[in-house]
């Protein structure tokens, strides 16, 4: 991924900054410039909002055939997580046994290394999830 493309999203990936529609109060992650519910009424009314980082598993899978970049982690668990604020996101679930994962499982975001460009290249960091009860 080109450096500026990653750099533009550092705030969201490192700190979980989403957006809140000041018109209806709904919270979005990743941030949106327009609230899909309020559309025109939300224009210029989307404020930055930092997610707490806690949520629960909506659904999940164990990946056996990963992208080569993630080969070393294979097999690993991907999950769709609904945060306490109501936003949903996709992330890697670490430090959990697949047998213990189920919808509704409480999880928390944790800052981890996502990947790297090359030996000397950019290292990507971002959120992953781990069980709240660990």
């Amino acid at each position, binding site marked *: *991924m080109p450096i500026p*493309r990653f750099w533009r*999203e550092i705030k969201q990936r490192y700190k979980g900054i989403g957006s809140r529609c000041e018109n209806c109060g709904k919270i979005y992650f*990743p941030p949106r410039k327009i609230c899909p519910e309020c559309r025109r009424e939300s224009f210029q009314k989307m404020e930055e909002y930092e997610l707490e980082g806690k949520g629960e598993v*909506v*659904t*999940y*899978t*164990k*990946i*056996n*055939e*990963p*992208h*080569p970049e*993630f080969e070393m*982690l294979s097999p*690993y668990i*991907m*999950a*769709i*997580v609904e945060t306490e604020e109501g936003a*949903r*996101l*996709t*992330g*890697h679930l670490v430090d959990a046994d*697949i047998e213990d994962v189920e*919808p509704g499982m409480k999880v928390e975001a944790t800052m981890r290394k*996502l*990947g790297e460009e090359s030996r000397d290249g950019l290292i*990507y960091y*971002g*959120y*992953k999830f781990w069980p709240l009860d660990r």
Partner: protein
Amino acid sequence: MQNSEKRSMTEVHNLRDVAIIGIGETQIGELWDKSLRELGIEAGLKALKDAGLHGDEVEKLYVGNMSAGKLINQEHVAPLIADYAGISEVPSTRIESGSASGGMALAEGYKAVASGMEDIVVVGGAEKMTDVGEQEAKDILSSTADQEWETVFGATFDSLYAMMARYHMDNHGTTKDQLAQVAVKNHANAAKNPNAQYPRETSKKFVKNAPMVADPLGMFDCAPISDGGAAVVLCPAERADSFDGDPVEIVSLGQGGDHMAVHERRDIGTMKATERAAKKAYKRASVKPQDIDFAEVHDNYTITEIMAIEDLGFFEKGEGGRATEEGKTELNSDISINTSGGLKAKGRPVGAVGLNQAVEAVLQLRGEAGERQVDQPGYGLIHNIGGTGASAIVHILRRWS
């Protein structure tokens, strides 16, 4: 108002009726000896020949292609194919909507003819996927998901569908056996299709014992990577009888959209884009799901077919798996689903898929589908999904008379 609901799509919108008068398709598979342009030309020329045309009658060419830029490092493929088909003077446009590129190209062709802008339009689809390795082709497929908020975190295309499958199993009791039955049925149909990539039967045991890709989906729950091309020739239906090919009418179409990322959808076990597309197509055609005799649905994974037959209204939500297990979607049962073998077994030349589906529908409606012929079909439906379901297109067809 009540009257207007009974009027056809073309009457309501003041459009011309549109017919398919020619079809052509290549073999689907790993075709090492064929390039993208050759696949496009072969399909197009077969379609023109079927219609009894020479090529100089063509007024417009649409090409469905998902990712020639990444797969063969070639953009601007519509004029390339037109040129090598010997019709470089004909205006041509490529249409891209992920794996729904073919279906969307057909919709554009329909609109060009229905509106009165053009009379003879060729719509082709072609994809050359095996010039890159399998892993690279899979990564390119996953670029139709949200690259910045899904795949960068480690999600593969397979895993996004696997999560839909898991959700469907948890919420509707769908089983791995039922998923496997989709593959078994589609392979049985493909065994009767000479153009299929995998024209052979398989067993539930074999599908279930295949290596796991992303739980609960195994290797045989996934469609292959394929090369192939398909094309149709369109004309105003009122002129259809003056050409060679037995005409089939495109009665209506509907397109639907949804959130790009899977996580953004509240009900991950439903494809809203399909529901929305189908609703429009049924309304415009004044038909109900029960009126459809056969359908080619987008089965890039076994779970996708189960969701599709529910979201298209053939079965209640949550009943798709059970209906499949009970044989209700087999050839000449309640509704014949994926008589061609589908993406699963006929193959997935990704940007051509929507046209492959159209070719199958025309063969069925003409009564030329051979061993896999549906018994006297009235209406056929084709359904093509882009990416993980952010776009979908449905066409309804019947024999022109």
